[in-house]
């Protein structure tokens, strides 16, 4: 008797706690059913709200919510003379490949979205792109730079440049800027993006300086926190520069440990550095290093400046490149929906019309640069090299175009 009473009481406490903690979620659900009668365009976002890179999911959602508010407050999106309200559905891909497949499938088949924006990291975008293409649903991955995400998939597009382009950008930059003739690479072999980029960098650098000029090519596996063995190997090989194409949660550990082992030469990064709270996690240790990316917030002008100021006003922080690319991707998608000239209501036909309109978009003037899609669904656009300055700002250093 006493035992079951204790059990019941502790269960009650757990449920009460759970209700308190989830209290903030209730409001969103309450006003969802009202919209059923209006003309609605649904767009799905399979993004990483939890898992390894939650900041990326948050930035995506922030940028999307800004557009949603803007369009719906203006009465909706006008397509072929009819006003449609936008409805954005966010589904957590937990930063896992298998969850990205599940979330994308659910958005397409259960929620019946017209189009997909996301996933962001290549690890999820490559498998999710296969799902979208199978179901003939147009998808734009704003941030995935791995070629396989869009390769031979007519329904899949991306909002950023590719790793094969970013690799040479980094290789050329370290050669010109630091006079580097020997380079080292440290990357996560279990993740599509770092692995692809590390290999493109190695290829480009060895084309410039001959075979063997990448003197250390060290790897680790996702979730590793101790890189001392790899960094000891790298320091022993005595390269001029270290290339680290990793995400913001690993970069601080690598940079700090490298410093503790006596590394005092430059470290070059890739666009994954710019997302999330890199400086909050890394602090002074990351200052003075460089990375290639899609846009630089410091020193922006025009529409980009307006976007940054609008974002800061709502969320109180500077938008990262994920936010900027998501903004452009959603806007291109909306542009393509408008370009169809009118929706039929038949989901399969509309999805195909949107795909065709996306392929026809030329010189779209985005905040991360002008974009035109190649037949593969990849945009032609420029890369930016930024320096992390003494105030911890990502300041514009150099622009590199294809």
């Amino acid at each position: 008797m006493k035992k079951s009473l204790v059990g019941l009481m502790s269960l009650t406490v757990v449920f009460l706690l759970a209700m308190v903690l989830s209290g903030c979620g209730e409001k969103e659900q309450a006003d969802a059913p009202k919209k059923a009668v209006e003309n609605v365009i649904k767009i799905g976002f399979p993004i990483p709200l939890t898992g390894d890179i939650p900041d990326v999911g948050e930035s995506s959602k922030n940028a999307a919510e800004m557009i949603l508010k803007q369009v719906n407050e203006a009465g909706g999106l006008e397509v072929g003379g009819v006003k449609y309200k936008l409805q954005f559905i966010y589904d957590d891909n937990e930063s896992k490949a298998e969850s990205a497949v599940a979330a994308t499938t659910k958005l397409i088949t259960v929620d019946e979205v017209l189009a997909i924006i996301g996933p962001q990291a290549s690890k999820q975008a490559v498998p999710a792109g296969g799902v979208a293409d199978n179901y003939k649903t147009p998808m734009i991955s704003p941030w995935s730079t791995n070629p396989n995400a869009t390769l031979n998939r007519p329904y899949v597009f991306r909002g950023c440049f590719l790793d094969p382009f970013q690799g040479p950008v980094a290789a050329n930059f370290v050669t010109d800027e630091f006079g580097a003739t020997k380079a080292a690479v440290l990357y996560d072999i279990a993740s599509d993006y770092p692995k692809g980029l590390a290999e493109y960098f190695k290829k480009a650098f060895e084309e410039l300086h001959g075979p063997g000029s990448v003197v250390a090519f060290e790897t680790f596996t996702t979730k590793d926190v101790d890189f001392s063995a790899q960094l000891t190997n790298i320091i022993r090989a005595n390269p001029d520069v270290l290339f680290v194409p990793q995400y913001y949660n690993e970069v601080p550990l690598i940079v700090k440990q490298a410093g503790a082992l006596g590394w005092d030469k430059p470290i070059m990064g890739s666009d994954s550095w710019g997302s999330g709270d890199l400086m909050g996690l890394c602090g002074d240790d990351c200052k003075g290093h460089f990375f290639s990316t899609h846009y630089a917030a410091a020193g922006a002008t025009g529409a980009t400046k307006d976007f940054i100021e609008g974002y800061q006003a709502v969320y109180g922080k500077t938008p990262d490149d994920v936010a900027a690319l998501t903004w452009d991707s959603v806007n291109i998608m909306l542009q393509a929906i408008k370009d169809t000239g009118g929706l039929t209501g038949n989901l399969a036909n509309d999805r195909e019309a949107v795909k065709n309109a996306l392929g026809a978009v030329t010189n779209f003037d985005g905040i991360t640069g002008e974009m035109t899609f190649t037949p593969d669904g990849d945009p032609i656009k420029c890369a930016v090299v930024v320096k992390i300055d003494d105030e911890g700002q990502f300041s514009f250093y150099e622009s590199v175009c294809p």
Partner: protein
Amino acid sequence: MNLTFFFQNVVNALQWGSFYALIALGYSMVYSILMLFNFAHGDIFMVGTYIGFVLTTGLVALSAAGIVVLPNWLILVLTIVLAMLFTSCLGMLVERIGYRPLRGAPRASAAITGLMIGIILQTTVLSIMGAQRVLYPSLIPTTAYTVGGVSVTNIKIMIVFVSIALMIALHQFVQHSKWGMAMRAMAYDYAVVPLMGISINAIAALTFAIGSALAAVAGIMYGMAYPILDPSMGILFGWKSFVAAILGGRGSIMGACIAGFLIGFIEIFVATIFPSTLRDLIAYSIILFILVFRPHGLFGEPYSARLRL
């Protein structure tokens, strides 16, 4: 492999192995008393790290606001003491609600209890702290010293020394205190010893408390060495430390320490010599190989779970 390079890796391995050793102790002690593995221990380590994070952040904020101005070393000491206390309470709570009611239950039920508690702890921390990575505040600025070409930081030295000091303290406690004697007696036979007036509940709670306190210290030092925390950090660490506990010989305190350092050394040196991708593959193949020849672990004896040192 020249000598400097070799010693650099030895230093790296000592730091890495310290964490495995401290966490393996928690597994080993619980096993020797209750004959079961507390699979939630990796997550208790994680919670200990977060408790340390909250305490340090709070105390630093209080100091910065000028409410209670404390020097950094005092903040560190307070954090360690309070985190040990809170995490011990958590360990005892886990024992009280997770293990004690199931003591007579089938083995499998007691084994999955740990897994479930682990998941509960992870999701609780996830819902309170959010999925965002947090930065463990640095109380002591990292200073790197170079001794004969080998880079050593003050943090590394502290970690290795504190770990070894704790192991010696635990040894003294188990061998030379009344409670320690009771624990050894209980490990010898937990069916008969309670008949002599020693409460198995008290001893079990004490064992969980000590194991959790060690995990809390490991967590705080982990935060200082690898300052990016996330709620799933305890899983893989817990598994590998569990391997250390088994490899050391189930129930052997010295075995757990030595095996923890051994795993640290194997992991670091494999990553140094082979492509680092193969690290876990080769490292754990070696450990499997050792177990084939020493099925009871390095210091284990057949049919006995005595708490030895």
